Protein backbone atom coordinates (compact mmCIF):
# COMPACT_ATOMS: atom_id res chain seq x y z
CA UNK A 1 0.00 0.00 0.00
CA UNK A 2 2.83 2.26 1.06
CA UNK A 3 4.72 1.43 -2.15
CA UNK A 4 1.55 2.19 -4.19
CA UNK A 5 1.36 5.61 -2.56
CA UNK A 6 5.02 6.35 -3.42
CA UNK A 7 4.42 5.44 -7.07
CA UNK A 8 1.31 7.62 -7.19
CA UNK A 9 3.21 10.50 -5.64
CA UNK A 10 6.10 10.01 -8.01
CA UNK A 11 3.75 9.96 -10.98
CA UNK A 12 1.96 13.01 -9.69
CA UNK A 13 5.34 14.76 -9.27
CA UNK A 14 6.33 13.91 -12.82
CA UNK A 15 3.00 15.12 -14.14
CA UNK A 16 3.35 18.26 -12.12
CA UNK A 17 6.83 18.86 -13.52
CA UNK A 18 5.52 18.31 -17.05
CA UNK A 19 2.67 20.77 -16.40
CA UNK A 20 5.16 23.30 -15.03
CA UNK A 21 7.48 23.05 -18.00
CA UNK A 22 4.59 23.47 -20.38
CA UNK A 23 3.60 26.53 -18.49
CA UNK A 24 7.17 28.05 -18.67
CA UNK A 25 7.31 27.63 -22.46
CA UNK A 26 4.40 29.93 -22.74
CA UNK A 27 6.18 32.83 -20.97
CA UNK A 28 6.58 35.89 -23.17
CA UNK A 29 10.34 36.98 -23.81
CA UNK A 30 11.43 39.83 -21.60
CA UNK A 31 11.65 43.14 -23.52
CA UNK A 32 15.22 44.91 -23.01
CA UNK A 33 15.72 48.71 -23.07
CA UNK A 34 15.30 50.29 -26.53
CA UNK A 35 18.47 50.68 -28.72
CA UNK A 36 19.41 54.30 -28.99
CA UNK A 37 20.96 55.15 -32.32
CA UNK A 38 24.20 57.10 -31.98
CA UNK A 39 25.07 59.12 -35.00
CA UNK A 40 26.28 62.52 -36.08
CA UNK A 41 26.24 64.28 -39.39
CA UNK A 42 29.46 64.04 -41.44
CA UNK A 43 31.06 67.41 -41.81
CA UNK A 44 30.96 68.16 -45.48
CA UNK A 45 34.68 69.03 -45.90
CA UNK A 46 37.11 67.64 -48.50
CA UNK A 47 40.80 67.29 -47.62
CA UNK A 48 42.42 69.43 -50.28
CA UNK A 49 45.09 67.84 -52.53
CA UNK A 50 48.16 70.06 -52.20
CA UNK A 51 48.94 71.86 -55.38
CA UNK A 52 52.36 71.56 -56.89
CA UNK A 53 53.01 75.11 -55.76
CA UNK A 54 52.07 74.31 -52.20
CA UNK A 55 54.18 71.16 -52.18
CA UNK A 56 57.07 73.20 -53.52
CA UNK A 57 56.63 75.72 -50.70
CA UNK A 58 56.42 72.96 -48.12
CA UNK A 59 59.46 70.93 -49.09
CA UNK A 60 63.04 71.76 -48.26
CA UNK A 61 65.76 71.78 -50.94
CA UNK A 62 66.92 68.39 -49.69
CA UNK A 63 63.41 66.93 -49.94
CA UNK A 64 62.88 68.32 -53.41
CA UNK A 65 66.14 66.79 -54.56
CA UNK A 66 65.47 63.55 -52.75
CA UNK A 67 62.05 63.30 -54.40
CA UNK A 68 63.76 63.86 -57.76
CA UNK A 69 61.28 66.44 -58.96
CA UNK A 70 63.86 66.92 -61.72
CA UNK A 71 64.76 63.68 -63.44
CA UNK A 72 68.27 62.79 -64.58
CA UNK A 73 68.99 62.07 -68.22
CA UNK A 74 71.40 59.58 -69.77
CA UNK A 75 73.77 59.77 -72.70
CA UNK A 76 75.25 57.56 -75.37
CA UNK A 77 78.80 56.24 -75.03
CA UNK A 78 81.38 59.01 -75.58
CA UNK A 79 78.57 61.37 -76.67
CA UNK A 80 77.13 64.53 -75.20
CA UNK A 81 74.11 65.21 -77.40
CA UNK A 82 70.63 64.88 -75.84
CA UNK A 83 69.11 61.54 -76.86
CA UNK A 84 65.66 61.60 -78.50
CA UNK A 85 64.18 59.52 -75.68
CA UNK A 86 65.58 61.96 -73.11
CA UNK A 87 63.94 65.01 -74.68
CA UNK A 88 60.55 64.39 -72.98
CA UNK A 89 62.40 64.16 -69.66
CA UNK A 90 64.10 67.44 -70.41
CA UNK A 91 60.74 68.98 -71.40
CA UNK A 92 59.22 67.87 -68.09
CA UNK A 93 62.19 69.26 -66.19
CA UNK A 94 61.91 72.53 -68.11
CA UNK A 95 58.16 72.75 -67.45
CA UNK A 96 58.74 72.32 -63.76
CA UNK A 97 61.54 74.86 -63.70
CA UNK A 98 59.50 77.39 -65.69
CA UNK A 99 56.74 77.03 -63.10
CA UNK A 100 59.14 78.05 -60.35
CA UNK A 101 61.27 80.85 -61.68
CA UNK A 102 62.97 81.38 -58.33
CA UNK A 103 64.66 77.99 -58.59
CA UNK A 104 68.35 77.75 -59.43
CA UNK A 105 69.72 74.46 -60.59
CA UNK A 106 73.16 72.86 -60.85
CA UNK A 107 73.57 70.40 -63.70
CA UNK A 108 76.13 67.71 -62.82
CA UNK A 109 77.78 65.95 -65.74
CA UNK A 110 78.97 62.38 -65.13
CA UNK A 111 80.66 59.67 -67.20
CA UNK A 112 81.01 55.92 -67.09
CA UNK A 113 84.36 54.44 -66.18
CA UNK A 114 85.40 53.72 -69.74
CA UNK A 115 87.42 56.87 -70.22
CA UNK A 116 90.48 58.55 -68.81
CA UNK A 117 90.17 60.88 -65.85
CA UNK A 118 91.21 64.04 -67.70
CA UNK A 119 89.10 63.44 -70.78
CA UNK A 120 86.07 62.47 -68.73
CA UNK A 121 86.10 65.78 -66.84
CA UNK A 122 85.81 67.53 -70.19
CA UNK A 123 83.20 65.05 -71.46
CA UNK A 124 81.10 65.37 -68.29
CA UNK A 125 81.25 69.11 -68.68
CA UNK A 126 80.08 68.87 -72.28
CA UNK A 127 77.12 66.76 -71.12
CA UNK A 128 76.19 69.25 -68.42
CA UNK A 129 76.54 72.06 -70.94
CA UNK A 130 74.35 70.24 -73.49
CA UNK A 131 71.68 69.77 -70.82
CA UNK A 132 71.88 73.43 -69.83
CA UNK A 133 71.66 74.58 -73.44
CA UNK A 134 68.62 72.38 -73.96
CA UNK A 135 66.89 73.88 -70.92
CA UNK A 136 67.71 77.36 -72.19
CA UNK A 137 66.31 76.46 -75.61
CA UNK A 138 63.07 75.55 -73.81
CA UNK A 139 62.86 79.01 -72.32
CA UNK A 140 64.89 78.86 -69.13
CA UNK A 141 67.16 81.69 -68.12
CA UNK A 142 70.79 80.65 -68.54
CA UNK A 143 71.64 82.56 -65.36
CA UNK A 144 69.56 80.09 -63.34
CA UNK A 145 71.49 77.04 -64.52
CA UNK A 146 75.05 76.34 -63.41
CA UNK A 147 77.09 73.33 -64.46
CA UNK A 148 79.80 71.14 -62.95
CA UNK A 149 81.58 68.03 -64.14
CA UNK A 150 82.66 65.16 -61.93
CA UNK A 151 84.01 63.09 -64.80
CA UNK A 152 83.99 59.46 -63.71
CA UNK A 153 84.69 60.14 -60.05
CA UNK A 154 81.09 59.77 -58.82
CA UNK A 155 79.47 56.73 -60.42
CA UNK A 156 75.81 56.14 -59.54
CA UNK A 157 76.09 52.36 -59.64
CA UNK A 158 78.96 49.92 -59.89
CA UNK A 159 79.25 47.11 -62.36
CA UNK A 160 80.84 46.18 -65.63
CA UNK A 161 77.93 45.89 -68.04
CA UNK A 162 76.30 48.28 -70.47
CA UNK A 163 73.28 48.79 -68.17
CA UNK A 164 75.62 50.02 -65.44
CA UNK A 165 77.57 52.23 -67.80
CA UNK A 166 74.31 53.69 -69.14
CA UNK A 167 73.16 54.55 -65.62
CA UNK A 168 76.45 56.32 -64.95
CA UNK A 169 76.54 58.35 -68.17
CA UNK A 170 74.20 61.04 -66.93
CA UNK A 171 73.35 64.61 -66.17
CA UNK A 172 71.75 65.18 -62.77
CA UNK A 173 69.77 68.28 -61.89
CA UNK A 174 70.36 69.51 -58.37
CA UNK A 175 68.15 72.31 -57.05
CA UNK A 176 70.45 74.76 -55.28
CA UNK A 177 67.97 77.56 -54.52
CA UNK A 178 64.18 77.74 -54.37
Amino acid at each position, binding site marked *: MKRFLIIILALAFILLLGACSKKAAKVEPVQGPAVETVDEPVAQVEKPVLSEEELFQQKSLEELNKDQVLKMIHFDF*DMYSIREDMKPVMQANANWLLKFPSVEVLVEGHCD*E*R*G*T*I*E*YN*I*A*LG*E*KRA*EAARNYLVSLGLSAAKVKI*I*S*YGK*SKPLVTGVDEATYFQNRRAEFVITKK
Partner: protein
Amino acid sequence: MKLSRTILILLAMLAFQPLRGQEEITIRIREGMPMIPVAMPAFQLNPEAQKSETAAVVYDTLWQDLEFSRVFKMVPREHYAYIPAFNPNAIRFKDWASIQANILVSGQLELTADDRVIFSFKVYEVTGERFIFGRNFGGKKDLARLIAHRAADEMLKHFGERPLFTSKIAYISEAGNDRDVYIMDFDGQRSTRITFSSALDMLPSWSADNEKILYTSYRNLSPELFMFHIYSGKTELISSGGSNYAADWSPAGDRIVYTSSKHGNAEIYLKDMKTGQEKRLTFNPAIDTSPCWSPNGREIAFTSQRGGTPQIYVMDAEGSNVRRITMEGGYHDSPAWSPDGMRLAFVSRIENRFDIYIFNLKSNEISKLTENAGRNENPTWSPDGRHLAFSSNRSGRYQIYLVDYDGRNVRQITSRGENKMPKWQRTTK
Protein backbone atom coordinates in the same frame (compact mmCIF):
# COMPACT_ATOMS: atom_id res chain seq x y z
CA MET B 1 104.95 39.89 -67.07
CA LYS B 2 106.14 39.09 -70.47
CA LEU B 3 107.96 41.60 -72.58
CA SER B 4 105.64 43.14 -75.07
CA ARG B 5 107.82 42.72 -78.11
CA THR B 6 104.98 43.20 -80.50
CA ILE B 7 105.76 46.40 -82.24
CA LEU B 8 102.63 47.68 -83.85
CA ILE B 9 103.33 49.72 -86.87
CA LEU B 10 100.50 52.00 -87.62
CA LEU B 11 101.13 53.26 -91.08
CA ALA B 12 98.96 56.24 -90.54
CA MET B 13 101.42 57.39 -87.92
CA LEU B 14 103.60 58.48 -90.78
CA ALA B 15 101.60 61.64 -90.90
CA PHE B 16 104.16 62.87 -88.42
CA GLN B 17 106.61 62.77 -91.30
CA PRO B 18 104.24 62.65 -94.24
CA LEU B 19 106.89 62.48 -96.95
CA ARG B 20 108.07 59.12 -95.70
CA GLY B 21 104.67 57.61 -96.37
CA GLN B 22 105.88 55.33 -99.15
CA GLU B 23 109.12 54.25 -97.54
CA GLU B 24 109.63 50.95 -95.85
CA ILE B 25 109.97 51.18 -92.11
CA THR B 26 112.71 49.38 -90.28
CA ILE B 27 111.57 47.79 -87.06
CA ARG B 28 114.13 48.44 -84.39
CA ILE B 29 113.55 46.84 -81.05
CA ARG B 30 115.22 48.74 -78.28
CA GLU B 31 117.03 46.16 -76.24
CA GLY B 32 118.84 48.45 -73.86
CA MET B 33 122.47 48.38 -72.86
CA PRO B 34 124.01 45.35 -71.18
CA MET B 35 123.72 45.69 -67.44
CA ILE B 36 126.81 46.00 -65.23
CA PRO B 37 127.19 43.08 -62.77
CA VAL B 38 127.63 44.31 -59.21
CA ALA B 39 128.60 42.37 -56.10
CA MET B 40 127.86 43.80 -52.67
CA PRO B 41 129.09 41.69 -49.75
CA ALA B 42 127.62 42.23 -46.28
CA PHE B 43 128.52 45.54 -44.67
CA GLN B 44 131.03 45.92 -41.85
CA LEU B 45 129.06 46.93 -38.76
CA ASN B 46 129.96 48.51 -35.43
CA PRO B 47 128.59 46.73 -32.32
CA GLU B 48 125.60 49.10 -32.08
CA ALA B 49 124.67 48.44 -35.71
CA GLN B 50 124.95 44.68 -35.20
CA LYS B 51 122.11 44.87 -32.68
CA SER B 52 119.85 46.88 -34.99
CA GLU B 53 117.71 46.29 -38.05
CA THR B 54 119.01 49.50 -39.62
CA ALA B 55 121.98 47.90 -41.38
CA ALA B 56 119.68 45.40 -43.06
CA VAL B 57 117.33 48.23 -44.14
CA VAL B 58 120.20 50.12 -45.80
CA TYR B 59 121.66 46.97 -47.37
CA ASP B 60 118.35 45.65 -48.74
CA THR B 61 117.21 49.05 -50.00
CA LEU B 62 120.50 49.68 -51.80
CA TRP B 63 120.40 46.17 -53.27
CA GLN B 64 116.81 46.59 -54.50
CA ASP B 65 117.60 50.01 -55.99
CA LEU B 66 120.58 48.74 -57.96
CA GLU B 67 118.59 45.71 -59.11
CA PHE B 68 115.73 48.00 -60.16
CA SER B 69 117.97 50.38 -62.12
CA ARG B 70 118.32 48.37 -65.38
CA VAL B 71 121.85 49.80 -65.33
CA PHE B 72 123.25 47.36 -62.79
CA LYS B 73 122.60 43.69 -62.26
CA MET B 74 123.24 42.14 -58.87
CA VAL B 75 125.42 39.02 -58.76
CA PRO B 76 123.34 36.53 -56.72
CA ARG B 77 124.46 36.31 -53.10
CA GLU B 78 124.68 32.51 -53.25
CA HIS B 79 127.65 32.88 -55.56
CA TYR B 80 129.64 34.61 -52.85
CA ALA B 81 129.84 31.27 -51.05
CA TYR B 82 132.12 29.89 -53.76
CA ILE B 83 134.91 32.33 -52.89
CA PRO B 84 136.69 33.29 -49.65
CA ALA B 85 134.84 35.73 -47.41
CA PHE B 86 135.18 39.42 -48.26
CA ASN B 87 137.93 41.25 -46.45
CA PRO B 88 137.75 45.04 -46.93
CA ASN B 89 141.41 45.41 -46.00
CA ALA B 90 142.71 42.87 -48.50
CA ILE B 91 140.37 42.58 -51.44
CA ARG B 92 141.01 39.55 -53.67
CA PHE B 93 139.68 40.95 -56.95
CA LYS B 94 140.40 37.73 -58.89
CA ASP B 95 137.91 35.89 -56.66
CA TRP B 96 135.20 38.45 -57.40
CA ALA B 97 136.01 38.34 -61.10
CA SER B 98 135.56 34.56 -60.95
CA ILE B 99 131.88 35.01 -59.98
CA GLN B 100 131.36 37.48 -62.84
CA ALA B 101 131.31 40.68 -60.77
CA ASN B 102 132.52 43.79 -62.60
CA ILE B 103 131.86 46.21 -59.78
CA LEU B 104 132.32 45.61 -56.08
CA VAL B 105 130.56 47.70 -53.44
CA SER B 106 132.05 47.63 -49.99
CA GLY B 107 130.00 49.18 -47.20
CA GLN B 108 130.55 50.12 -43.61
CA LEU B 109 127.71 51.11 -41.31
CA GLU B 110 127.84 52.63 -37.85
CA LEU B 111 125.04 53.42 -35.49
CA THR B 112 125.92 56.18 -33.04
CA ALA B 113 124.73 56.54 -29.44
CA ASP B 114 122.29 59.30 -30.51
CA ASP B 115 120.65 57.00 -33.10
CA ARG B 116 122.33 58.35 -36.18
CA VAL B 117 123.47 56.21 -39.06
CA ILE B 118 126.82 56.74 -40.72
CA PHE B 119 127.07 54.81 -43.93
CA SER B 120 130.31 54.75 -45.92
CA PHE B 121 130.69 52.88 -49.13
CA LYS B 122 133.50 52.33 -51.58
CA VAL B 123 133.10 51.22 -55.16
CA TYR B 124 135.80 49.18 -56.91
CA GLU B 125 136.30 48.09 -60.48
CA VAL B 126 137.04 44.37 -60.29
CA THR B 127 138.92 43.79 -63.53
CA GLY B 128 141.03 46.95 -63.18
CA GLU B 129 141.50 46.10 -59.48
CA ARG B 130 141.09 49.72 -58.54
CA PHE B 131 139.09 51.99 -56.27
CA ILE B 132 136.65 54.17 -58.30
CA PHE B 133 134.84 56.33 -55.77
CA GLY B 134 133.36 56.38 -52.31
CA ARG B 135 130.98 58.48 -50.22
CA ASN B 136 129.96 58.83 -46.59
CA PHE B 137 126.38 59.62 -45.61
CA GLY B 138 125.07 60.36 -42.14
CA GLY B 139 121.53 60.88 -40.94
CA LYS B 140 118.84 60.00 -38.46
CA LYS B 141 118.13 56.29 -38.12
CA ASP B 142 114.59 56.59 -39.47
CA LEU B 143 116.02 57.97 -42.73
CA ALA B 144 117.90 54.73 -43.38
CA ARG B 145 116.02 54.12 -46.65
CA LEU B 146 116.78 57.62 -47.87
CA ILE B 147 120.48 57.11 -47.08
CA ALA B 148 120.46 53.95 -49.21
CA HIS B 149 118.62 55.78 -52.03
CA ARG B 150 121.26 58.54 -51.94
CA ALA B 151 124.00 55.94 -52.24
CA ALA B 152 122.20 54.28 -55.17
CA ASP B 153 121.82 57.67 -56.88
CA GLU B 154 125.58 58.25 -56.49
CA MET B 155 126.14 54.94 -58.25
CA LEU B 156 123.94 56.05 -61.17
CA LYS B 157 125.57 59.48 -61.40
CA HIS B 158 129.02 57.97 -61.39
CA PHE B 159 128.13 55.75 -64.31
CA GLY B 160 126.77 58.71 -66.30
CA GLU B 161 123.12 58.04 -65.60
CA ARG B 162 120.42 60.31 -64.23
CA PRO B 163 119.64 59.77 -60.54
CA LEU B 164 116.14 58.62 -59.68
CA PHE B 165 116.14 56.81 -56.34
CA THR B 166 115.59 59.93 -54.23
CA SER B 167 112.72 61.03 -56.48
CA LYS B 168 109.15 61.01 -55.26
CA ILE B 169 105.75 60.23 -56.73
CA ALA B 170 102.69 62.35 -55.99
CA TYR B 171 99.38 60.53 -56.16
CA ILE B 172 95.78 60.49 -55.02
CA SER B 173 94.69 58.20 -52.23
CA GLU B 174 91.34 57.82 -50.62
CA ALA B 175 91.05 58.90 -47.01
CA GLY B 176 87.56 57.99 -45.87
CA ASN B 177 85.15 59.60 -48.31
CA ASP B 178 87.76 62.09 -49.48
CA ARG B 179 90.48 61.78 -52.03
CA ASP B 180 93.62 63.63 -51.09
CA VAL B 181 97.09 64.26 -52.45
CA TYR B 182 99.88 62.12 -51.03
CA ILE B 183 103.58 61.86 -51.85
CA MET B 184 105.81 58.82 -51.47
CA ASP B 185 109.25 57.55 -52.40
CA PHE B 186 109.51 56.12 -55.92
CA ASP B 187 109.27 52.59 -54.46
CA GLY B 188 106.00 53.25 -52.63
CA GLN B 189 107.58 53.61 -49.18
CA ARG B 190 107.46 56.56 -46.77
CA SER B 191 104.15 58.04 -47.93
CA THR B 192 102.89 61.35 -46.56
CA ARG B 193 99.46 62.88 -46.90
CA ILE B 194 99.72 66.51 -47.94
CA THR B 195 96.16 67.76 -48.53
CA PHE B 196 93.32 67.51 -46.04
CA SER B 197 90.32 68.90 -47.87
CA SER B 198 86.98 67.25 -47.26
CA ALA B 199 86.36 67.12 -50.99
CA LEU B 200 87.69 65.48 -54.09
CA ASP B 201 91.34 66.31 -54.87
CA MET B 202 92.84 65.04 -58.10
CA LEU B 203 95.58 65.05 -60.77
CA PRO B 204 98.65 66.26 -58.83
CA SER B 205 101.68 67.61 -60.67
CA TRP B 206 105.16 68.57 -59.40
CA SER B 207 106.87 71.91 -59.79
CA ALA B 208 110.30 71.86 -61.41
CA ASP B 209 111.95 72.50 -58.01
CA ASN B 210 109.95 69.65 -56.41
CA GLU B 211 108.71 72.00 -53.68
CA LYS B 212 105.20 72.70 -54.93
CA ILE B 213 102.33 70.59 -56.19
CA LEU B 214 99.59 71.71 -58.52
CA TYR B 215 96.35 69.84 -58.12
CA THR B 216 92.63 70.15 -58.74
CA SER B 217 90.23 70.30 -55.82
CA TYR B 218 86.44 70.44 -55.58
CA ARG B 219 86.65 72.03 -52.11
CA ASN B 220 84.75 75.13 -53.27
CA LEU B 221 82.21 72.99 -55.15
CA SER B 222 83.83 73.41 -58.54
CA PRO B 223 87.08 71.97 -59.90
CA GLU B 224 89.70 74.65 -59.28
CA LEU B 225 93.45 74.53 -59.69
CA PHE B 226 95.52 75.01 -56.54
CA MET B 227 99.21 75.15 -55.76
CA PHE B 228 100.44 73.69 -52.49
CA HIS B 229 103.84 74.66 -51.09
CA ILE B 230 104.95 71.41 -49.50
CA TYR B 231 107.52 72.85 -47.09
CA SER B 232 105.62 75.93 -45.97
CA GLY B 233 102.11 74.49 -46.01
CA LYS B 234 100.75 77.43 -47.99
CA THR B 235 97.97 76.89 -50.57
CA GLU B 236 97.33 79.28 -53.48
CA LEU B 237 94.42 79.37 -55.91
CA ILE B 238 95.85 79.32 -59.42
CA SER B 239 92.80 79.10 -61.68
CA SER B 240 89.04 79.02 -61.20
CA GLY B 241 85.88 79.42 -63.25
CA GLY B 242 84.60 76.38 -65.12
CA SER B 243 86.77 73.27 -64.68
CA ASN B 244 90.51 73.66 -64.12
CA TYR B 245 92.70 70.57 -64.18
CA ALA B 246 95.46 68.48 -65.79
CA ALA B 247 98.28 70.94 -65.01
CA ASP B 248 101.89 70.32 -66.07
CA TRP B 249 104.87 72.40 -65.00
CA SER B 250 107.44 73.41 -67.59
CA PRO B 251 110.86 71.76 -67.16
CA ALA B 252 112.46 75.18 -66.61
CA GLY B 253 109.93 75.86 -63.86
CA ASP B 254 108.75 79.23 -65.15
CA ARG B 255 105.44 78.32 -66.76
CA ILE B 256 102.54 75.90 -66.41
CA VAL B 257 100.02 74.55 -68.89
CA TYR B 258 96.59 73.31 -67.85
CA THR B 259 93.06 72.72 -69.06
CA SER B 260 90.31 75.18 -68.24
CA SER B 261 86.76 75.81 -69.36
CA LYS B 262 86.72 79.27 -67.76
CA HIS B 263 85.58 80.70 -71.09
CA GLY B 264 83.04 77.99 -71.76
CA ASN B 265 84.92 75.20 -73.48
CA ALA B 266 87.81 72.92 -72.40
CA GLU B 267 90.89 74.69 -73.78
CA ILE B 268 94.58 74.67 -72.95
CA TYR B 269 96.07 77.66 -71.18
CA LEU B 270 99.64 78.64 -70.49
CA LYS B 271 100.44 80.66 -67.39
CA ASP B 272 103.68 82.44 -66.57
CA MET B 273 104.20 81.72 -62.87
CA LYS B 274 106.40 84.79 -62.34
CA THR B 275 104.24 87.45 -63.99
CA GLY B 276 100.91 85.65 -63.59
CA GLN B 277 100.21 86.36 -67.24
CA GLU B 278 97.94 83.89 -69.00
CA LYS B 279 97.74 82.89 -72.63
CA ARG B 280 95.15 80.69 -74.28
CA LEU B 281 96.80 78.15 -76.59
CA THR B 282 93.88 76.33 -78.21
CA PHE B 283 90.83 77.76 -79.97
CA ASN B 284 88.58 74.91 -80.90
CA PRO B 285 84.97 74.08 -80.07
CA ALA B 286 86.04 70.48 -79.43
CA ILE B 287 87.57 69.21 -76.18
CA ASP B 288 91.27 70.09 -75.76
CA THR B 289 92.91 68.71 -72.62
CA SER B 290 95.80 66.85 -70.93
CA PRO B 291 98.69 69.17 -71.93
CA CYS B 292 102.22 67.94 -71.27
CA TRP B 293 105.57 69.66 -71.86
CA SER B 294 108.35 68.28 -73.98
CA PRO B 295 111.54 68.06 -71.90
CA ASN B 296 113.12 70.97 -73.78
CA GLY B 297 110.07 73.14 -73.04
CA ARG B 298 109.53 74.01 -76.70
CA GLU B 299 106.53 71.78 -77.46
CA ILE B 300 103.36 70.64 -75.78
CA ALA B 301 101.60 67.33 -76.37
CA PHE B 302 97.87 67.30 -75.67
CA THR B 303 94.61 65.47 -76.31
CA SER B 304 91.99 66.88 -78.64
CA GLN B 305 88.66 65.61 -79.85
CA ARG B 306 88.70 68.04 -82.83
CA GLY B 307 88.95 65.11 -85.26
CA GLY B 308 85.84 63.43 -83.76
CA THR B 309 87.50 61.22 -81.17
CA PRO B 310 90.21 61.98 -78.60
CA GLN B 311 93.62 61.85 -80.27
CA ILE B 312 97.12 62.97 -79.28
CA TYR B 313 98.48 66.13 -80.89
CA VAL B 314 101.69 68.13 -80.53
CA MET B 315 101.96 71.91 -80.83
CA ASP B 316 104.67 74.47 -80.31
CA ALA B 317 104.62 76.04 -76.85
CA GLU B 318 103.13 79.20 -78.39
CA GLY B 319 100.11 77.22 -79.58
CA SER B 320 101.07 77.15 -83.26
CA ASN B 321 102.12 74.34 -85.61
CA VAL B 322 99.59 71.76 -84.39
CA ARG B 323 100.14 68.25 -85.74
CA ARG B 324 98.35 65.02 -85.02
CA ILE B 325 100.34 62.09 -83.61
CA THR B 326 97.86 59.23 -83.21
CA MET B 327 95.74 58.24 -86.18
CA GLU B 328 94.49 54.73 -85.57
CA GLY B 329 92.16 53.74 -82.81
CA GLY B 330 89.33 55.76 -81.41
CA TYR B 331 90.49 56.92 -78.02
CA HIS B 332 93.83 58.18 -76.76
CA ASP B 333 94.64 60.41 -73.80
CA SER B 334 97.08 61.17 -70.97
CA PRO B 335 100.23 61.84 -73.03
CA ALA B 336 103.51 61.80 -71.07
CA TRP B 337 106.74 62.90 -72.75
CA SER B 338 109.84 60.82 -71.94
CA PRO B 339 112.81 62.68 -70.37
CA ASP B 340 114.93 62.06 -73.50
CA GLY B 341 112.26 63.72 -75.64
CA MET B 342 112.09 60.71 -77.95
CA ARG B 343 108.94 58.99 -76.79
CA LEU B 344 105.37 59.72 -75.81
CA ALA B 345 103.55 57.38 -73.47
CA PHE B 346 99.76 57.54 -73.55
CA VAL B 347 96.61 55.58 -72.79
CA SER B 348 94.62 53.97 -75.60
CA ARG B 349 91.23 52.41 -75.40
CA ILE B 350 90.95 49.53 -77.80
CA GLU B 351 87.84 47.35 -77.57
CA ASN B 352 87.23 48.72 -74.08
CA ARG B 353 90.63 47.75 -72.83
CA PHE B 354 92.79 50.54 -71.50
CA ASP B 355 96.48 49.97 -72.04
CA ILE B 356 99.54 52.14 -72.05
CA TYR B 357 101.39 52.50 -75.33
CA ILE B 358 104.67 54.17 -76.17
CA PHE B 359 105.07 56.06 -79.40
CA ASN B 360 108.59 56.65 -80.66
CA LEU B 361 108.66 60.12 -82.20
CA LYS B 362 111.79 59.37 -84.23
CA SER B 363 110.81 56.04 -85.73
CA ASN B 364 107.02 56.35 -85.55
CA GLU B 365 106.85 52.95 -83.90
CA ILE B 366 104.25 52.13 -81.30
CA SER B 367 104.83 49.53 -78.62
CA LYS B 368 102.38 48.29 -76.05
CA LEU B 369 103.56 48.61 -72.48
CA THR B 370 100.76 46.92 -70.55
CA GLU B 371 98.98 43.79 -71.63
CA ASN B 372 95.24 43.40 -71.17
CA ALA B 373 95.31 43.41 -67.41
CA GLY B 374 92.56 45.64 -66.05
CA ARG B 375 92.37 49.31 -66.86
CA ASN B 376 95.78 50.98 -67.05
CA GLU B 377 95.92 54.76 -66.79
CA ASN B 378 97.94 57.93 -66.11
CA PRO B 379 101.45 56.91 -67.23
CA THR B 380 104.31 59.02 -65.85
CA TRP B 381 108.05 58.63 -66.56
CA SER B 382 110.86 58.18 -64.05
CA PRO B 383 113.50 60.95 -64.10
CA ASP B 384 115.89 58.65 -66.02
CA GLY B 385 113.29 57.49 -68.55
CA ARG B 386 113.90 53.79 -67.91
CA HIS B 387 110.72 53.28 -65.91
CA LEU B 388 107.12 54.41 -65.77
CA ALA B 389 104.53 54.52 -63.05
CA PHE B 390 100.83 54.08 -63.81
CA SER B 391 97.62 53.18 -62.05
CA SER B 392 95.69 50.02 -62.74
CA ASN B 393 92.67 48.17 -61.36
CA ARG B 394 94.09 44.79 -62.47
CA SER B 395 93.96 43.47 -58.89
CA GLY B 396 90.54 44.93 -58.03
CA ARG B 397 90.87 48.45 -56.74
CA TYR B 398 93.15 51.01 -58.36
CA GLN B 399 96.78 50.74 -57.27
CA ILE B 400 100.02 52.24 -58.48
CA TYR B 401 102.47 50.08 -60.43
CA LEU B 402 105.96 50.53 -61.83
CA VAL B 403 107.11 49.03 -65.10
CA ASP B 404 110.32 49.28 -67.12
CA TYR B 405 110.28 51.10 -70.46
CA ASP B 406 110.11 47.75 -72.29
CA GLY B 407 107.24 46.28 -70.29
CA ARG B 408 109.43 44.22 -67.97
CA ASN B 409 109.44 44.11 -64.16
CA VAL B 410 105.90 45.18 -63.36
CA ARG B 411 105.53 45.69 -59.66
CA GLN B 412 102.77 47.02 -57.44
CA ILE B 413 103.97 49.70 -55.02
CA THR B 414 100.76 50.64 -53.17
CA SER B 415 98.23 48.38 -51.50
CA ARG B 416 96.17 50.24 -48.89
CA GLY B 417 92.80 51.59 -50.00
CA GLU B 418 92.70 52.93 -53.52
CA ASN B 419 95.64 54.81 -55.04
CA LYS B 420 95.83 56.42 -58.45
CA MET B 421 96.95 59.31 -60.68
CA PRO B 422 100.69 58.96 -60.02
CA LYS B 423 102.98 61.78 -61.11
CA TRP B 424 106.72 61.20 -60.86
CA GLN B 425 109.08 64.09 -60.20
CA ARG B 426 110.87 65.22 -63.33
CA THR B 427 114.26 65.23 -61.59
CA THR B 428 115.70 64.38 -58.20
CA LYS B 429 116.41 67.39 -56.05
